[in-house]
């Protein structure tokens, strides 16, 4: 019918018109660069001279590159330990704050505060807190008769230091969980109480399924953020005059930092592009796996 096709053409035009800023941006700032990045990954490019084609050399180098393996290991370490810990802690905080406490808005604001502070400030303050000689953190550990590691210079403890800073900044997720907890259907909760279920059973049967969509979302966001982590380890490893650094024994060298170093310090933009592509594929794979397995434990509606 002519009327319907005019309408649907019109709808298409309108849709594209409104969506145009992002569509243009997508091609120019996302799709284009992704493809270009793929192209550069097959070249040797130092930014000052035109790129030379080298085939799969960059990928072959990657396999034998010790620092690549280390960067990958570091990033996976931070992800596997950091993300679940942060998520659990934020859920714990949310549960604690969800109980009937006076002055909740104030506590909520305090918990959220660390996330709006410029990251640079946070990292430098923690660098001071974790100083082996003068840091307060170790002093508190000492008062509790706990071991006081050299957080910033002992390679075993630098990644835990990053995770620690991450735990301090769970405010964002905490507030999200708080909002989600308020949405837990109270009838189901009451029913469980009546049934004589203990707090842990109530949590497992009612609360956890109800907040599982939020958990999935936060898990994905957390994973993606962790895989590309750059700022915190970069600043924690910063030295005088900003010579390229990866922390003691390269223990702070994350994948994101290694890409940055190859691109802007060693001027190996081809290799950096190859590294970036591998990261992209890993992120896609991880997200896909997570989404697929989510069907088993996420309850919608």
């Amino acid at each position, binding site marked *: 019918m002519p009327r319907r096709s005019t309408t649907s053409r019109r709808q298409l035009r309108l849709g594209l018109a409104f969506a145009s800023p992002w569509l243009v941006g997508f091609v120019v700032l996302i799709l284009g660069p992704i493809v270009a990045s793929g192209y550069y990954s097959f070249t040797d490019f*130092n*930014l*000052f*001279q035109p790129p030379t084609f080298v085939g799969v050399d960059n990928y072959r180098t990657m396999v034998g590159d010790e620092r690549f393996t280390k960067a990958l290991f570091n990033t996976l370490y931070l992800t596997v330990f950091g993300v679940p810990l942060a998520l659990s802690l934020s859920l714990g905080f949310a549960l604690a704050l969800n109980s009937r406490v006076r002055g909740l808005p104030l506590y909520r604001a305090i918990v959220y505060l660390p996330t709006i502070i410029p990251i640079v400030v946070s990292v430098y303050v923690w660098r001071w807190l974790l*100083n*082996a*000689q*003068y840091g307060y953190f170790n002093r508190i550990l000492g008062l509790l008769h706990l071991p006081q590691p*050299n957080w*910033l*210079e*002992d*390679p075993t403890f630098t990644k835990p230091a990053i995770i620690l800073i991450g735990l301090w900044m769970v405010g964002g997720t905490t507030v999200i969980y708080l909002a989600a907890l308020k949405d837990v259907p109270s009838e189901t909760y009451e029913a469980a109480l009546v049934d004589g279920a203990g707090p842990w059973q109530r949590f497992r049967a009612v609360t956890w399924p109800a907040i599982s969509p939020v958990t999935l979302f936060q898990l994905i966001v957390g994973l993606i953020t962790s895989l590309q982590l750059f700022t915190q380890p970069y600043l924690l490893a910063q030295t*005088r*005059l*900003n*010579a*390229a650094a990866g922390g*003691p*024994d*390269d223990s702070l060298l994350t994948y994101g930092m290694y890409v940055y170093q190859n691109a*802007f*310090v*060693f*001027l190996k933009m081809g290799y950096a592009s190859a590294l970036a592509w591998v990261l992209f594929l890993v992120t896609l794979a991880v997200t896909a796996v997570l989404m697929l397995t989510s069907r088993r434990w996420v309850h919608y509606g």
Partner: protein
Amino acid sequence: MRRESFRRATAAAMAGVLATALGACGGSDGGDDDKVEVVFSYLWAGAEAEALEEIIADFNASQDEIEVRGVSNPDFQKQLTSMSGAQGSFDISDHFGNGVGAWASKGILAPLDDFIEADGLDTDDFVPAAMSQMMYEGQTYSMPIALHAQMLMYNKKLYAEAGIDGPPETTEEWAEQIAKLTKRDADGTITQLGYANAEINTSFTTLGFMFGGAWDDQSGRPTPADPGNVAGLEFYTENIPGTYGVAEVRDFTSGFGEYASAQNPFYVDKVATIIDGEWQSVFIDQYAPNLDWGVAPLPYPAAQPELAGTTQVTTSTLFIPRNAKHPEEAWEFMKYLLSEDAMVRFTLALGNLPARISLLDDPRYDTLPQFSTWLDALRSPNAQSLASTPWSAEYTSDLGQAFDDIAQQRTSPAEGLADVADKASSYAP
């Protein structure tokens, strides 16, 4: 529909305003219309930067065509990325001599030979060892403004307390003195260290030279596994972390204050001896005028007296990037800095050694406390330096990693340096 076009017009106008604002805000190329602005981005900071600014002000006052704007950017990474843009954010900058080859080979630096010839600059007056680092494939890419030498500095007060007469002559004496100068608590916590690295890369390469090692051969190929190098690093690992414990040393050094401040560990009696450069003469005068200190030639192994007077010479150089907006004017400023009077002013203010041979005996340097020891070091036949090659950046980076591993005793000096030799074979022919 009219609303839509009105909105579009407003948007366009806003965009125009934005563009002008952003263009103006983003990287000023301001200054007077008559004067050409030359941006001098330098790695020096703090008091050294202030001294440099005075010299810049003098140059600006002395002529009408060029206005130099100095910017303190103590950031290696930023310096490199700034030179990658189509239009550079600075016209002239400084770096270290052994990095010239790497940058020149990548086409980052502008060759200076035409300028030198046209103005008849007397390159013969410059210390030959320094000038050779400036060359790559027969062309000059940089000019030395100051030289640096490494000497043994010691804290006289701590020496008196430990009952030691004077600085060591041989490395064996030094080892004995270090043992006497290190103090520990009952639980092993270090409270005073006989020796600590002022800056690990320079200190370790110097230690290598001191024990007869060499980090490159005649053709510039890396030789990290030279037995002299291994011996030098073993001196450190045996006497410091090997004796007092890696974790204990690490804990102690992590509390060190900032190098260029009154909290420098050498100034506050935390470290008794260091290997450091001649700028300390000015630094100590500024940050710790009450410190009782001395400087002496670096010790040599008793079995190898021919190594006496070894030191490592490094160069501060000036260069013009290829993407400089005003290379000719930048050269005019460089010429000024390289002239005798400006060089003396510059090196006196920063406490550096001059790059001109004619200035080595200049009486004006007598004003700097204990400076003559460093000046004499330049004349020693055992003054060594690292080669400037296209792979210097990778080599320095690999050495840095190995040094960290060795200092933290994750690997032995022999193994760590052999590792670097392996890696070097992939980028050095």
